[in-house]
């Protein structure tokens, strides 16, 4: 009989959880957790589409998507850490002597294990997402290689020039036909530069005597900017130029105009 009474006294796991949730500080942590997670999620969903420039290619769409969704996915991480910190902060006590000692909790192995496992899980999600995206881009580039239009990009201190070998022209502005796969072969005539057509969402450094390659397919008509993303000397900030994604007809007209002027523009 005594034996049975002892077993009745031990709480079940479900009851244990209910007990824990009834405690004031646990509820406060949960409240702050929900609050901060919501704040960061909303931030990710609202801020990045607003802040980031026009999406003019699949690659740029992928870039922005990562910014938004990584923020949402990491919101609970921020939420839980800030929740505990906030819960502690609201109890802060002034005074000239230290407050009374707290409970002597010097560790809790299950917590550490779960925390590590959850971090590992988040990591894996991020890695898989990134690898999948990378793989999509490179498969895409390989598939479109044969119809890609080549543009040779030359970075020089402190201007870009773009050579279109098939069209036989070299220009300082980057005009591209819409929905045409492009292969950029990038090189530098001096120090390191970095070719960054911002709204197209790709980037690659320009190095001397070593061609680097990046592929993109612009899929929206409009203006974009080409910037240099690697400090290259006194006028690094001014090493920028205009780009334009236009219809195939407009692009061909532009090529003809440049050719009529001698092939360099």
């Amino acid at each position, binding site marked *: 009989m005594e034996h049975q009474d002892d077993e009745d006294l031990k709480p079940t796991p479900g009851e244990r959880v209910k007990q824990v949730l009834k405690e004031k500080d646990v509820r406060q942590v949960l409240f702050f957790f929900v609050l901060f997670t919501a704040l960061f999620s909303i931030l990710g969903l609202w801020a990045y589409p607003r802040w980031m420039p026009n999406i003019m290619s699949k*690659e740029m769409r992928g870039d922005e998507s990562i910014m938004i969704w990584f923020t949402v996915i990491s919101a609970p991480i921020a939420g839980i850490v*800030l929740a505990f*910190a906030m819960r502690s902060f609201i109890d*802060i006590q002034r005074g000239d002597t230290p407050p009374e*000692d707290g409970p002597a909790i010097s560790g*809790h192995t299950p917590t550490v294990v779960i925390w590590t496992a959850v971090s590992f899980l988040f990591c894996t999600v991020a890695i898989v997402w990134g690898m999948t995206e990378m793989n999509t881009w490179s498969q895409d580039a390989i598939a479109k290689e044969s119809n890609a239009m080549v543009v040779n990009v030359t970075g020089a201190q402190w201007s870009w020039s773009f050579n279109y070998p098939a069209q036989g022209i070299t220009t300082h502005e980057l005009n591209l036909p819409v929905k045409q796969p492009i292969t950029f072969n990038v090189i530098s005539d001096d120090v*390191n530069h970095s070719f960054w057509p911002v709204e197209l969402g790709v980037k690659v450094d320009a*190095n001397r005597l070593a061609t680097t390659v990046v592929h993109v397919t612009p899929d929206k008509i409009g203006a974009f900017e080409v910037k240099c993303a690697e400090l290259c000397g*006194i006028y690094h900030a001014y090493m920028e130029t205009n780009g334009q994604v236009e219809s195939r007809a407009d692009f061909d007209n532009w090529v003809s105009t440049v050719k009529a002027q001698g092939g360099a523009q």
Partner: protein
Amino acid sequence: MTTLTHNPAASGPAASRPVPQPKKSLITRLHMGTGMVVGIIFCWGTYFVLRHHFSSPYRINHDEGLTDSHNVNITLLASMFMWCLGFLIGIGALIGPFRWLIGKDLTAEEQLYLAGDGQDWKRYFRYCTDHKVVGIQYLVGVMTLLGAGGTMAMMIRTNLVTPGSHFVAPHVYNSLVGLHGITMIIALIIVSTGPFGNFIMPIMIGAADMAFPRLNALSWWVLFTAIPVLCSAWFLGGIPTGWTAYAPLSTQAGPGMNAFLATIIIFAFSTAVAGANITTTVIAMRAKGMTWNRVPIFVVGATISVALAVPAFPTFMAAMIQTGLDRTFATGFYDANIGGSGWLYANLFWIMGHPEVYVILIPGVAALMEIAPVFVRKPLFSYGAAIAGFAGIAGLSILVWAHHMYMSGWMPSLNGPFMVTTEFISIPTGLLFLVLIGTMWRGRPWMKLPMLSVYAFIWDFLIGGITGIYLSDVPADNYLHGSMYVTAHFHYTLMGAALTGAIGGLAFWFPKMTGRMLNERGGYISFWLVQIGFNVLFLGMFLSGAEGQPRRVADYGQVFAHANLISTVGAYSVGVGALILLWAVIHSARSGKIAPMNPWGSKTLEWTVPYPVPLVNFDEPPIVTSDPYGYGRSVK
């Protein structure tokens, strides 16, 4: 190796001990002034000899394709190194080794003299081997570097307040960016391990001094010689590169670049010496009973940090030596025209560069982990997880460097593997958060500046760490690399985490280092101005980065105007806050409230010694019987 602890003359209270009076010898006459005189003589002497040599028909590189630029670089580099050597000779750094070499080692009295026994404030300007003196010297050095770097930061933000760049010219702006970067990086590498690793750490482990007292003084004075060398860059035309000094822009650069190269080589030497000293001290000189699981977490963190620096920094030194050779003897390490490659530089640099940011981060976090138990009156949550966190970060940090090179085009096939290792580093980093919030859970926090730093760290490092995850993602990095987003991320981690940790450490250990309490009101006002300003500054920068502003640009398009204005306003707030903290430190050190021996009720060993701390720290070597986190009643 000398051990002061075994010297009977060194024990007992200083007041009753005879003040050592070694014969009037060279040792007693040398100080910082004589160092500077000899240094300047060596520097100018070298300069004139080489200038004369290169303008004569018999110069060694006559007709070998080397020209004026190369000669100028040789002359400047040689002069800078000779300044360093001359200073060390002039301050007496080489006397000890030289006397040992000739078999007439320093006497006990001379060693005590070198340790500053019984001397006044002048010992801070001598080659003093007392680790407490070296700690204060490092503190002053760090504050000077932070002040210089901070001034440059104010210049940078002022230039960017509106589009149109009318404050300074682009070449001045680029120099500001590069020199601000290197000044702050140097300052942050030593910000916690310098002052606290030297002053506090040996007392914390119950030792009488560090393992190599003379090397201790050497590490500080070598660093000191690097400061004028770094400043000279401004008078030699500045540098066109960032602090990363990418080749071949660095080989193309004007004379000012030599100052940068020399600074790094000198500084790498200083940190190697300091690293060896700290590591040996912690391994060999812990008090009796201080087993590895009773070592305070700050000591563990500082040791892991310097142990990580030892394999990492030499590659930076090597990269700088190669840049130097390219600039002086036209070697082709980084010149693609003759078979070299800028990628070689990038790899060498980042093999150092990534571990180096953890060298910066870990001591700051470790200081906060030392602080949190004291101010919430609870044991450190999971000492083992803290160690695993630091060790995991240190180990993994050696495998992640090429995430800085995703967009370089060097080896796209390695982008994936580096993405994996980089993402994984977030796991041990997460453990650090767990340790801190676990420590805070159900404790009653005491409102004091060190504890406020813990909260600030959590907010700042959370943002810094999570934005690091975006950057580690290769597709997203296509957009983010080389933009202001990166700048905002690393300021959140380096400044928001490491510097905040150091400020917390300063507030915490101030009573033991100066005998007085840091002015509270000044501390709070400074804290809020800095933290709020910091967040405004760099959240504004995340905005401009997301909008597409490249980094290190002297000017920008109209679309970035709002974000930059916000950032600049935040920067000014940080500046004012930092000035108030500077005032608080100086004022409190001189006339603050006298501190009791253990104002925080902490259980680590440094709080068991009085101020001024005796020369050998403890009258009796302490015996340790438990870890220093024995707070709290038992859990029911």
